[in-house]
């Protein structure tokens, strides 16, 4: 029983980070209708910026903020330069998805050219010395990761639900023209969505970097759990993405401990495939958003 509880506790921190990634992916999808394949690579870029700052003897807290800002700027710049020309075009969303795929490939290589292919490590925000409660151990570091990811995710969920800009972002993907008739330029909302999503990706990158390390090719390893979290929670549902992330991490750890660590990574892929086959709208999503009309 202790092993089972330990398995669940160990998954919580990673799950919160997956949820944070899922929130970023869902936010851009909810606003623009675009699935951002470069999201994981943006997270890695944020981690590398923080790493570069710590290498320049900048305090870790400032480096973390720098990493988040770097990722937010990069994501905003991506929207402004390569995605904006496609708005309004015939099959523009399809082109935009392909472009984010190209940006992911490009960012991976740029990261490799800048910082090399050797994996790097970023200092942890809190101590890694384990605390023991009832035979179950957890570290201040994992608790910090969990709290940071959950607080930021909750802030974004509330911001989108309660603020005027947030409501406009929700409406933008459904009817861009109505939003512009209300006096809000959709392009500005798209830029805000990508910038905020970039910031969440940067935070996810700096939170997870101390435990998994930084390597240029890790973008896919981060974006797939993010996608799985978003799909399981219901694409476009921000609270669903948070819950989906935690569920994915729990399943991952259970398979790794009780079945085989080799197949643990398959959990997230299988979750995507099974949800799309059996229950397309996930836990909290909208069926109309997901199922083809014809």
């Amino acid at each position, binding site marked *: 029983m202790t092993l089972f509880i330990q398995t669940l506790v160990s998954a919580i921190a990673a799950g919160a980070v997956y949820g944070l990634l899922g929130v970023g992916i869902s936010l851009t999808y909810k606003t623009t209708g675009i699935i951002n394949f470069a999201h994981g690579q943006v997270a890695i870029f944020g981690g590398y910026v923080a790493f570069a700052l710590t290498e320049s003897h900048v305090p870790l807290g400032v480096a973390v903020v720098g990493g988040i800002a770097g990722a937010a700027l990069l994501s905003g710049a991506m929207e402004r330069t390569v995605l904006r020309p496609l708005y309004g075009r015939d099959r523009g969303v399809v082109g935009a998805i392909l472009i984010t795929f190209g940006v992911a490939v490009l960012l991976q290589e740029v990261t490799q050219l800048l910082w090399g292919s050797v994996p790097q490590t970023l200092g942890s925000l809190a101590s890694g010395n384990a605390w023991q409660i009832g035979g179950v151990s957890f570290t201040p570091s994992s608790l910090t990761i969990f709290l940071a990811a959950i607080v930021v995710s909750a802030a974004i969920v509330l911001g989108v639900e309660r603020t005027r800009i947030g409501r406009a972002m929700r409406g933008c993907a459904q009817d861009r023209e109505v939003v512009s008739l209300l006096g809000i330029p959709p392009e500005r909302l798209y830029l805000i969505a990508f910038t905020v999503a970039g910031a969440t990706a940067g935070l996810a990158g700096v939170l997870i970097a101390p435990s998994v390390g930084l390597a240029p090719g890790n973008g896919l390893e981060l974006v797939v759990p993010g996608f799985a979290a978003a799909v399981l929670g219901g694409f476009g549902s921000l609270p669903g993405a948070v819950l989906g992330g935690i569920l994915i991490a729990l399943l991952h750890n259970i398979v790794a401990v009780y079945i085989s660590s080799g197949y643990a990574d398959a959990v997230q892929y299988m979750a995507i495939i099974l949800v799309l*086959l059996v229950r397309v709208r996930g836990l909290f999503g909208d069926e109309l958003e997901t199922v083809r009309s014809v």
Partner: protein
Amino acid sequence: MPPSRAAAQDDTTPRPTRPTPEVPSAPSDARPRRAVLGLGSRPGRGNSGRPLVIRFVAVAALAQFVPSIASTSNMLTINLACVYAVAAVGLNLIFGLGGLISIAQGAVMAVGGYITILLFGKTLGLVPCLLLAGCGGGVASLTMGLVGARVKTHYFVLASLAFAEVIVLVATTMTGLTGGSNGTALLGVPVLAGLNLSTNSGFFHFASILLLVVVYLADALRVSRGGLGLSALTMNSYLAVASGVNPLASRALATTVGGVFGGIAGGMLALLDGYLGPQNFDIPTATLLLLIVVVAGRAGNGSVVIATLILTFLSQGLLTSPAVGQLVYGIGLIALIIIAPGGVYAATDWSRRRVVRWRGRVGYKSGGSHE
């Protein structure tokens, strides 16, 4: 006053009439003919206008001529291009014709490749292995197609990504069967009708003919009832359904046939390299195939073959510096979609129209000055 109907009928003066399309008359009791995989139609008429025999003679001549002038390394690249061309023609059916973005064509190739490498030389001959590879690829791709037929394009991309990663993960984890990360080697020498496929020239003869057949079948599908239905679905799904197109069957057809070609391409790759590993089917392979289809645009399968040849040579040349190679891929993909979303064909067509318009303006201006 308008002339009376009788007067109009008596009027024997020949009037210019609009040419009407010939509608083939069918016996009243006959059921409408269905073109299975388009083979009931005439791809030569609908597409390039060249009958299969002429294409076959041209390819046979090319198969004799190219090995005599190309160096060994160039022949290896040309052979690899033939393999990728078969897979890209399949992807062109899924993405270009069906409008479904798939990142899993590399994984579908993996299914065919592993079927070939595991069965050839032990239990089955070359042709049954390739047929099974095609079937395996078709079934794998159809599984994805069933998801894609139900959900919107975005979700199909995610499903294809997950599918691709599962296949690579299985190939890496099942070390007893696939050799894991180290890969597995082909047993025996592949020989077909006296052609030794382990030699460059022998493989090129085989691959070029197979590519010709695949392009022919893909062209046939494009002009068949199913292919036209797919085109209609991509352009306007509501009108297509109102016209009687079955979206589920059409998308399943595109993914299955595209997957069969992908599986055969995987089998060809196993024969060409004599070795397969998960790294043969990773995301860069999927990127290359996707880039080929984007570069080719909507101009047909001939341009897919040309785009494959160019991009394979480019990718092999860039292999000396893999980081720069991927950098070029990324920039190329982004630039193409922004500047020339219809591919190189559309870009050329756009440039030609611009030149014609510019010439017209210059001619008008110079004519005006004379006056």
